[in-house]
């Protein structure tokens, strides 16, 4: 298969996935018996007239397929409905939430990758040493602890030393300088970021280690050693370079895990991002928000997956075979 075909195929799959997610969204919320929007028409104590008005208002009297196309049409125009909680358009709510979530998740992902690659590298190069044993076991244990537990434990340890909730201090100076607000933001962000790094770290170390061990066992590494190359050179230009391929895939595949971790972290630290929004939407049964968040998170995960696939293809065109 040629390169262009591969790109078209990947992007096509991404579009199909997003469409499928939108369809699932529609069916979950509107078609299943007793589903959310149907319940809207069952306001307690409503007269038959009010009920009928509501049914017409929400278009529930139309055939399902027509509802589905109206829904898709609104979606195409970026209309995700109106939040039950604050009567704002869902898209407006989500924009603010995403802007709060992205920096934390991005910093945490990059940090956990860097630390994970370094630790995995050391572990793989010194396989069987005490360093390797300690590093691997720490990774397994960190991997096994639930994200929300790590968050709560950090909170208990650092309560008093660092702020425990929110994104900024509401009681700070009237006109904080840029520097002061940045320090304040960082002080609030440090525990959420640390939690995410710790959650992701375990998985990353184990992935990097096993990917490197695989490549270190390859014949070309043996050849390189026979040629008399220094161990540093072997690891850097032979092993690590080839190990980057499985690392790329596996790390991007854990994106769903990053999203889940971010939700739990935000709930514990009351970080006003998309995870907290999801939690509030669940608590308040705010269905339009719930639908919107599911769609936005799916689109972002699918997007990054596709980007990773294309990067992988750039690194190793053989995948298109």
């Amino acid at each position: 298969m040629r390169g262009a075909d591969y790109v078209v195929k990947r992007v096509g799959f991404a579009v199909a996935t997003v469409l499928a997610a939108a369809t699932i969204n529609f069916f979950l919320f509107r078609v299943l018996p007793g589903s959310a929007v149907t319940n809207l028409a069952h306001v307690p104590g409503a007269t038959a007239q009010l009920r009928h008005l509501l049914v017409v208002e929400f278009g529930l009297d139309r055939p399902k397929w027509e509802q589905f196309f109206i829904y898709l049409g609104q979606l195409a125009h970026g209309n995700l409905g109106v939040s039950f909680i604050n009567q704002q358009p869902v898209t407006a709510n989500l924009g603010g939430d995403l802007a709060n979530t992205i920096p934390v998740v991005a910093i945490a992902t990059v940090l956990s990758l860097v630390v994970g690659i370094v630790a995995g590298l050391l572990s793989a190069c010194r396989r069987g040493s005490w360093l390797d044993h300690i590093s691997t076991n720490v990774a397994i244990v960190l991997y096994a602890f639930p994200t929300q537990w790590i968050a709560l434990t950090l909170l208990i340890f650092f309560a008093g030393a660092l702020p425990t909730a929110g994104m900024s201090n509401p009681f700070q100076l009237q006109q904080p300088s840029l520097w002061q607000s940045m320090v304040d933001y960082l002080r609030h962000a440090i525990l959420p970021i640390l939690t995410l790094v710790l959650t992701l770290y375990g998985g990353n170390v184990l992935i990097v280690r096993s990917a490197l061990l695989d490549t270190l066992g390859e014949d070309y590494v043996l050849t390189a050693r026979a040629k008399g190359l220094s161990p540093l050179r072997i690891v850097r230009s032979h092993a690590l370079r080839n190990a980057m391929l499985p690392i790329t895939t596996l790390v991007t595949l854990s994106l769903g895990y990053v999203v889940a971790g971010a939700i739990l972290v935000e709930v514990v630290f009351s970080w006003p991002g998309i995870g907290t929004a999801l939690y509030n939407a669940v608590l308040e049964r705010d269905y339009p928000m719930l639908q919107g968040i599911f769609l936005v998170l799916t689109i972002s995960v699918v997007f990054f997956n596709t980007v990773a696939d294309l990067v992988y293809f750039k690194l190793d065109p053989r995948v298109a075979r």
Partner: protein
Amino acid sequence: MEEPAPRLHARARSRLEAAARTLQRRPAMTVGALILAAFVTIAAIAPWAAPYATGHATGPVYGPPSSRHWLGLDDGGIDMLSLLLVGSRISLIVGAAATLVAIGVGGTVGVLSGYFGGAVDTLLMRVTDYFLVIPDVVLMIVVAALWGPSLPHVVLVIGLLLWTSTARIIRSQVKSLRERVYVRRARVMGAGHLRVLVKHILPQVGPLLIANTILTMAIAIFDETALDFLGLGDPNAVSWGIILEHANLRTAVTYGAWWAVIPAGVCIALVIVGCYLVGQALEDALNPRLRVSHLATRQWRLRALAGRGSEAE
């Protein structure tokens, strides 16, 4: 189509022996099995072993650990140790039940897809690809929120979204089995699909399925605590996830009540580590493809908690 019986037995025995030898070289397996056995025992005897009732207060709110309450008390003045013991039941049962659902779906999809190939394979793998990409914990949260919090819902939601990696692993195994001489011979001699599947394919993938079950259980328990934590578990049940939820909602941190947080997390982590140790060891021992020389050097093949790690094989 009859295999000479003694040879078959000899082969089966040598397979078992090979598996036993691999296990012997893996002390981690024993550690994991002991951890799991301990927790299963605890869950079985919990109602009798718990020092206090979990229905009503037996001491002060967030009382610290003492000689009467070894692990302190929770936000309602309920003995923490009793909660942990009783909570092990729901956590383990939900984990196991969700895993059964996941393995049932994943095993069926994997076997059908690998065995029949062609259009069935393409269709099923498209669906699997879709479920692999979608952020499953988010979908779990959405579905659980729509269905309302209850134990069966949690089991179904987790099980129905956790089958993808099982399907992939089983599919690739069945695909290679299908081409083996004895399977093809059975087909040529007139055995129906059902007979081939039951007599020749299932016995071969069975052990791998068991290893996979234990690995999946770790993820199921992890997801269950996440759903519980977000208020989507059965609010009246006692489970480790709900202990953590209460600790967060009812500000255990402000009280400095570490005993309401640490022990539940340690229990969850121990069970997950136990599942991984046993599952990985079993999979390495039973999956012949992992016994190729350089693959055998890797002690830890990781399955991302929400990803499709094992597919990298």
